């Protein structure tokens, strides 16, 4: 599970994240919603331990991400924003690298890579250098490294960004399939996505949580579109994730 308590992040004088707290339990799919620059990516980077919080703490499977970063990350699969990967490697080499980084060796590593290639429908491009692939494949390749070790906790930063409708469908199905026994947090600004796969939605605006509810509950207040705009336009001061 993920626990986040009173996370604050300041970049110089700008308050990117102000006092964010939440808990996510296995079986929950948390949609992290918010306009661009609201602090979604910054929050996720703090939960993964990539950014150190100005104050507050975060735990993955009970491990404090600042004090026990390696243990915490062992239980984590993470798809960073823009799905970075090593472009000079082939898809298979890249996944073999991820498997080795996760401590898999020999036959078990090959089996993991093989299964993940199939699961993410990457088998046909396995021998292509990643830089020669289209955006959708690159996104899925990075997604593949996040689920290769079957982690109990998945954090996905805009997993469907830049994908065509078919590819979005595939990724959403994968998330839904994995949802049963995992903790999944993913950020998006596509509202239909939240309705389609989330059991819970947090709306964040100008670094603060403005709603924490189920998509159905939010729905009662009007269309998700309207609720989103109503909650986020008043407080939004803009900014960027970097």
């Amino acid at each position: 599970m993920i626990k986040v308590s009173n996370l604050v992040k300041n970049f110089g004088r700008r308050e990117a994240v102000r006092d964010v707290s939440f808990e996510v339990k296995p079986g929950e799919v948390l949609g992290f919603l918010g306009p661009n620059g609201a602090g979604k990516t910054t929050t996720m980077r703090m939960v993964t331990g990539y950014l150190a919080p100005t104050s507050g703490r975060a735990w993955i499977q009970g491990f404090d991400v600042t004090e026990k970063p390696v243990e915490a990350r062992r239980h984590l699969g993470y798809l960073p924003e823009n799905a970075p990967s090593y472009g000079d490697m082939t898809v298979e080499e890249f996944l073999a690298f991820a498997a080795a980084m996760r401590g898999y060796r020999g036959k078990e590593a090959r089996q993991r890579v093989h299964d993940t290639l199939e699961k993410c429908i990457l088998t046909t491009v396995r021998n292509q250098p990643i830089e020669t692939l289209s955006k959708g494949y690159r996104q899925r390749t990075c997604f593949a490294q996040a689920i290769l070790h079957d982690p109990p906790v998945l954090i996905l930063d805009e997993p469907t960004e830049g994908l065509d409708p078919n590819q979005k469908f595939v990724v959403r199905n994968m998330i839904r399939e994995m949802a049963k026994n995992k903790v999944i947090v993913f950020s998006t600004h596509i509202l239909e996505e939240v309705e389609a796969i989330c059991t819970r939605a947090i709306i964040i605006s100008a670094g603060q949580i403005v709603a924490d509810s189920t998509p159905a509950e939010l729905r009662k207040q009007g269309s998700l579109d309207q609720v989103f705009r109503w909650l986020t336009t008043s407080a939004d001061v803009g900014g960027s994730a970097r």
Partner: protein
Amino acid sequence: MSSPVCTILKREWRSYFNSPVAYVFIVIFLALAGFFTFNVSRFYEAGQATLDRFFFWHPWIYLILVPAVAMRLWAEERRTGTLELLLTFPVTTAQAIAGKFLAAWLFVLMALALTFPVVATAFYLGSPDPGPIVTGYIGSALLAGAYLAVGSLTSALTRNQVISFILAAVIGLFLLLAGFPPVTDVLYQIAPAWAVEIVAGFSFSAHFEQMQRGVLDVRDVLYFASAIAFMLLATHVTLDNRRTK
């Protein structure tokens, strides 16, 4: 402990050979080493069975080529966003630094090893004392490591590879010139001797020169080891600073 270091090392090593960088580096390194040794220093005409004229040029060749190898170490990962991927695997920052540094070092050492025809030539033409050749190679290897560690730091400081290259070359030039006899001779005339010696003590040149002469002093080895350790530690601090900003 060691296995993530190994995994990162292997990935780095392969990335050198996936791009033209490796081949350009090796060819230019060997061409420059050969050109300076045989054409500029007139190795044959000198008629001496030593490799002084060969090792003399190493600091200068490294000065230009090693920052080019080091500049991509961190800057490239930051530019493409893979640093976030790398540092959210279950590894420590120290392991990532070690893996990347060792890969770059082994790569430069491989290029250095390919200069063996120079040694063969010396042995074919005369009977040189093998001692200074062995210590010269050890010194050259350590020197390359020190330049690389400087480059690792400057690469961590910026996501711009050009800036990383220039900073590394300038710092390298300073560390070289601070103990270079033509420079220290001038410094002795304008500054007290103890001050010049302190500055020169920080220099690569004096320590490397000892080794070229066949003297393998623990202090010289320690100097290079601590220079490398210090620069890698500074790389660690720089990468941590990015996290906390």
